[in-house]
């Protein structure tokens, strides 16, 4: 298993743990009673699961298992692969921080715009790097 895949899978598991912990917190009676504003974190929980866990596992396993691009670059551009990994995770973390702050009026929209752009960059660079590998062996 390549190093980048190991990073993807470990980061995915951290996001899964974070999402489930957040899920428990959002259902905790005292939190629901005292801090109803926490409901703004539900989209964050969903994206931790769908982007941080499911998409990240797919990206990591696809990088590992899809047909090789060439003998010199079996997995396409390694640099682009790492850039996808970094932008996906930084983008998602900015969302985790920015979404509740924005809902409470304590952050500018800039944080969410940066998060959106980074996640967009991650998705598009993944497509660019993966597309040439989708072919017969």
């Amino acid at each position: 298993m390549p190093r980048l895949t190991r990073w993807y899978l470990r980061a995915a598991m951290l996001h899964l743990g974070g999402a489930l912990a957040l899920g428990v917190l959002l259902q905790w009676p005292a939190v629901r009673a005292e801090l109803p504003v926490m409901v703004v974190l539900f989209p964050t929980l969903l994206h931790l699961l769908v982007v941080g866990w499911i998409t990240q596992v797919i990206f990591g396993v696809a990088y590992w298992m899809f047909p090789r691009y060439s003998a010199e670059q079996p997995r396409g551009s390694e640099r682009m692969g790492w850039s996808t990994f970094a932008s996906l995770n930084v983008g998602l973390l900015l969302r985790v921080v920015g979404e509740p702050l924005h809902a409470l009026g304590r952050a500018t929209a800039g944080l969410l715009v940066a998060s959106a752009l980074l996640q967009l960059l991650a998705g598009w660079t993944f497509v660019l790097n993966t597309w040439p590998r989708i072919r017969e062996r």
Partner: protein
Amino acid sequence: MPRLSIWLVRTSLVHLTVGIALGALLLAGRELADGAWVARLRPVHAELLLFGWTVQLIMGVAYWILPRYRAGRERGSAVLPWAAYWLLNAGVPLVAAGQWLSGAPSLALAGRLLEALAAGAFVAHALPRIRRFGSGT
């Protein structure tokens, strides 16, 4: 990778490209655009990423890697999985359009029916291939 998997995976990457762009617009556009217009993109974003990207990618990889038959065509008849491909890719845009045009529930219903038929066709193909490696014909 067989030809059908190439089509399924590449089409799923197209859905990822568009779906993640809509997600970025939703996240960044909360204060940058008219809220009602942006909010209507949410179900379209979810449809493209859940069915167009995730479900389709899984179908493509499953068709490629599930155990093959020893005799005859190694992956069995391709009629049902190709039908699944076309039904799914007719269904997803119909559901998305039905959700975008809020006054067109029949479009979304037609799309969902096509998606259900796609799932049925794919399951009918894949179920007999779920077995121990080397067992059966």
